[in-house]
């Protein structure tokens, strides 16, 4: 009997010990949180922050940690100095969690669904993205409506940050032409190419000339998983031109990607360039990390990049070559890739540091921070914000290029921004393009897969046009 009692006690004790390990420390966390948020008006560091709009002297976050979940390439080093000042001003630490681009979406969604998201998270936003990417935004996002920093965001970008009248996101991005063709003008001239290609036939011929000289015509980093599909989506204007009203039809589910002749034409042109080796011997296994060196060593002649990349290229490689810009002529496109969208940061509603998150958003929107972010962005020449005190650094090449484009060619936004649920399957479409280039699926499959994927998103979100 005594043995039985002993065994019972031991079993209960064992259960308690095991269950203790499963318990969370929410209680202790909130205690420490409340002690941290207690007033400490004597914080001299906070008091000296002259440019921080938040009343840092009254708010102390001493010892707290702010975590930020971001995809590689969206913050890079350009926020480092601002984050360091923020840490110093508020006596906090910032934990920057940078995830490789090809894994970011999966990681973010898993962490949002699992309730373990960082205090601040980023998405590649557009007018549809908050609803289609974050989906349950009311549960996941802090409502910033009425925040002072809203006025910093230009009108064109607000639709990527708001749902209805509610402000959720902060988008600080540049306004340079995005992902157009950057080419080595000196090299082109040396090879006898005096005019930039404006049609696919001309591009093909120029690529042939460049390849014959032992140079990779077009550097395309397929291993990144997110770059090569830009060549399909950035020329949305050409699809709309070929089928007027296409964007609206795609958005009300009266048109599909599948069967679109212009899209098929572009995909087939892309494959032809791939088959001819004009993207390099192993573009599918190539990442963008070495792109600047490849340009600097004159191993490549052109690539899809932002116009301001020219500046970074010159700084990184010290090349004396001249560079220029032209519109991607797949499908004979001559439309400008208008895209008032970009990486956008959101506050996670489940955070224990909501005030600190708000302080961070306000902090990065000060003139000092905005200037700092721009000045520390070697690949960007401007930051698109409503702040006349920020000094922009536009390149002459950019200004000349922009001036050369007819305004009527700037009206249609890029395909991924202008149509619903398209950007959600960015990576899937990229994988399909590679599968198409490797001959395992057809161009028609690539397009119909996008339709099927969009339908899944639409069904999940209960879009009336699909249901």
């Amino acid at each position, binding site marked *: 009997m005594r043995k039985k009692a002993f065994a019972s006690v031991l079993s209960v004790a064992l259960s308690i010990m095991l269950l203790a390990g499963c318990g969370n420390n929410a209680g202790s966390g909130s205690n420490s949180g409340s002690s941290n948020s207690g007033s400490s008006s004597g914080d001299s560091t906070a008091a000296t922050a002259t440019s921080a709009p938040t009343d840092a002297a009254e708010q102390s976050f001493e010892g707290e940690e702010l975590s930020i979940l971001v995809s590689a390439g969206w913050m890079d080093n350009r926020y480092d100095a601002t984050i360091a000042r923020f840490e110093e001003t508020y006596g906090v630490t910032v934990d920057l969690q940078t995830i490789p681009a090809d894994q970011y979406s999966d990681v973010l969604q898993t962490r949002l669904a699992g309730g373990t998201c960082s205090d601040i998270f980023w998405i590649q936003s557009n007018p549809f993205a908050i609803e289609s990417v974050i989906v349950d935004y009311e549960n996941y996002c802090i409502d910033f409506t009425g925040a002072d920093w809203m006025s910093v965001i230009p009108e064109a970008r607000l639709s990527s940050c708001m749902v209805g009248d509610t402000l959720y996101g902060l988008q600080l991005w540049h306004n340079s032409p995005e992902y157009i063709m950057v080419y080595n003008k000196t090299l082109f001239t040396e090879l006898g190419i005096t005019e930039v290609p404006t049609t696919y036939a001309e591009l093909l011929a120029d690529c042939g000339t460049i390849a014959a000289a032992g140079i990779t015509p077009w550097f395309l980093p397929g291993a990144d998983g997110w770059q090569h599909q830009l060549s399909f989506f950035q020329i949305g204007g050409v699809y709309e031109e070929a089928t007027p009203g296409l964007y609206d039809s795609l958005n009300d589910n009266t048109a599909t990607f599948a069967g679109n002749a212009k899209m098929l034409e572009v995909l087939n042109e892309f494959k032809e360039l791939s088959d001819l080796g004009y993207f390099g011997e192993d573009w599918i296994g190539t990442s963008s990390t070495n792109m600047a060196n490849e340009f600097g060593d004159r191993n490549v002649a052109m690539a899809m990049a932002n116009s301001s990349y020219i500046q970074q290229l010159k700084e990184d490689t010290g090349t004396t070559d001249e560079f220029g810009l032209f519109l991607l002529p797949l499908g004979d496109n001559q439309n400008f890739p208008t895209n008032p969208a970009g990486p956008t940061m959101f506050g996670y509603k489940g955070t224990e540091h909501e005030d600190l998150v708000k302080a961070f958003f306000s902090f990065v929107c000060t003139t000092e921070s905005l200037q700092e972010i721009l000045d520390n962005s070697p690949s960007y020449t401007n930051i698109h914000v409503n702040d006349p005190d920020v000094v922009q650094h536009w390149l002459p090449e950019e200004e000349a290029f922009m001036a050369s484009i007819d305004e009527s060619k700037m009206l249609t936004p890029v395909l991924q921004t202008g149509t619903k649920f398209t950007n959600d399957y960015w990576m899937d479409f990229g994988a399909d393009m590679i*599968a198409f280039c490797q001959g395992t699926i057809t161009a028609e499959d690539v397009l119909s897969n996008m339709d099927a994927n969009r339908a899944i998103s639409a069904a999940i979100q209960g879009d009336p046009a699909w249901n």
Partner: protein
Amino acid sequence: MKKNKIYPIWFIIAPLILYIVFFLTPSLLGVWYSFTDWNVRSKGIINFIGIDNYIQIFTSNIDYSSGILNTLKFTLISNIVKLIPALFLAILLKEKLKGKNFYRTIFYLPSILPFLVIGLIFKSILNFNDGLLNAAFEFLHLDFMKQKWLSDLGVVWKSIYGVDAWRGIGYVMTIFLAGLNAIPSSYYEAASIDGANFFHKLRYITLPMLTGAITINLVFGLTYGLKVFDIVYVLTNGGPGHATEVLTTYSYQLYANGAYGMATALNTILFLITTVLGVMIVTYMSKQEVRND
């Protein structure tokens, strides 16, 4: 006597409750969810939709079937490329070899490295343009050996098997070594006197006596192979294109896209395959063991 038999049950109760609450119940719930339309927008309203998710898996434009086949293929081949070399390595390192403990450690070391680290290192080593492996071939004037290790459809799976074997062989070898050490040396001595060569001893002594270790390795290898995710995810992320997608990478994508019902349906298929194959192997090997006894 009877009391002694009941006594250990008191110690089983606690872990059993935990097992039921935290493992069995969620697993069964997962099976239930696979028959529902549970998704990121459900907000607590989940509808029973029968086998729709399963129908979609086998009729969808996304080739889930190839993901299932790839998973089975990986399970089979990765076990072959690990078990056979590991067995011979174990036999080799059981002999009186100088520095055998050092070799054992070296072979075992990769298995303690996280997949993420291994994936990142090998991704760099296997890079076509500036990876170490191709550079080594170039240095040795063996340019014909250069490959697009992670982007060529004909090579990519071999690269994955190679990296997986590099990591896993030491672990499998260690289990074989434990089994080999339990075989009395007198058996081999008697066989030698009877004129048995290496392969005779392997066929009639080593393999029958190693049935237990082989079963363990097979079951571990089977469950590992069927639920493979990290090595594929880190090395190729299912690419190039969808060439190396497996069940779990598809399931992960579905979960990430908010289609939880579909994701759990895929997991249920994986669960069924694992259970059927696992039971078959254990039953077969147990019979072998009894026969050898």
